[in-house]
């Protein structure tokens, strides 16, 4: 039998901010790139996102936060994924994030930080180059 692997991406909005224009554009862009995109919707806490990612067997988790709570919320998702034995899931993030927070985010296990203005194709290429179905 020949495997038919597809990349599964879970996109989530941790925290209370409701700015979902960006993540919805990315969801569509990723779909058009051939990925299977699962969207968790707004106002989710890290635990909800992590559980969904595990149930969906996501290869990649993409998070967006524009409220300033990114250091805690993103870090918490990575931490809980690891605790649940899913540390091999790649986590990427975007939003309103000061450049000076990037080292801290990477140290926490975030693989890449995308700033406003990043073309969809840049993100798609990054994913294709860095994430393989688990």
């Amino acid at each position, binding site marked *: *039998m*020949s*495997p*038919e*692997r*597809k990349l*599964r991406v879970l996109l989530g909005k941790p925290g209370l901010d409701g700015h979902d224009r960006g993540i919805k554009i990315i*969801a*569509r862009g*990723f*779909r*058009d*790139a*051939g*990925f*299977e*995109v*699962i*969207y*968790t*919707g707004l*106002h*989710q*806490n890290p*635990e*909800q*996102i992590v*559980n*969904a990612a*595990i*149930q*969906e*067997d996501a290869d990649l988790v993409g998070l967006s936060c524009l409220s300033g709570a990114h250091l805690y919320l993103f870090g918490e998702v990575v931490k809980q994924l690891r605790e*649940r*034995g*899913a540390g091999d899931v790649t986590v990427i993030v975007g939003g309103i994030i000061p450049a000076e927070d990037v080292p801290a985010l990477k140290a926490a296990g975030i693989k890449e930080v995308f700033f406003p203005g990043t073309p969809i194709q840049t993100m798609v290429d990054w994913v294709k180059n860095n994430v393989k*179905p688990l």
Partner: protein
Amino acid sequence: MENNLTEKIIRGDVRAAAKLMRGIEDNLPEATDELQKLYPYTGKAFIIGITGSPGVGKSTLVDALITSFRQRQMTVGVVAIDPSSPFTGGALLGDRVRMGKHNTDAGVFIRSLASRGWAGGLARAAISVMYVMDAMGKDVIIVEAVGSGQGEVDIRRLADTTIVVLAPGMGDEIQMMKAGILEAADVYVINKADKDGAGILKTQLEIMLGTKTDYQNEWKPLIVPAQALHGKGIDELTAALLQHKDYLYAGAEIMRRRRERAKLELAAAVEHSLRNHVKMILESEELNTLADNLAQRKTNPYLAAEQAVHKAMGKFREC
């Protein structure tokens, strides 16, 4: 995919279950082996199918049903099916947005499934995902899909009990009637029952069901008005579903339905197996030889195809 997932799945390991589901979708050979091991542990769950046009509130209804079953101390699995894009193969799976509050409940497992192009494959994947949830010990499994599109799985054949969801003002009753979908439900939900036109819709449905006299056995489909968003009518719906379950198990109906599902499953498995062989043929070296012969007019396409199939069937018997 790691081996020996079965043990973990039976113990309720979510990650192991998710890995196997993925393996099935991705057509990994080990996944079929694991499924075979898992099969004896299945057959216990009550399977509910939910279908209806886009916008009638299926996912919201599923969300409310999960709450209701959880209040009754029953564990729940959800399979939410959405179409893949025929152009890119990608999919946007958003059903679980409306079920987000159950993400932290260990008694609930929600899995999104993309249709990935061919109906047989989807049916196989959907049934297999259901089995994994069943083996995990989920009491109720809800399968949700848009019912009227083409290349979709026929949800009625997957489920023990089928719900068709309607909402006033959608103008889709006629389409569904034409597609024969409207006639096959065990329970009808008129969602958004507070909206104008809900009463008329209910009357139309009653007339339609009233004129239908050839009910198999004695179950007369129930109509439940609901406002899923506000949790109204959900207790009544849950009661109706459990009532139907009792009816199924009281007689031979449950076996009849499971035989239907077995047929679908068997057909899907056969199709899946043959498809793999077809793929093998199309990707084999011999195909190139045959194509060369064909291009040089040494053979004809009909004979060549027959030879290719014979060859593959030989392999088929070997495995």
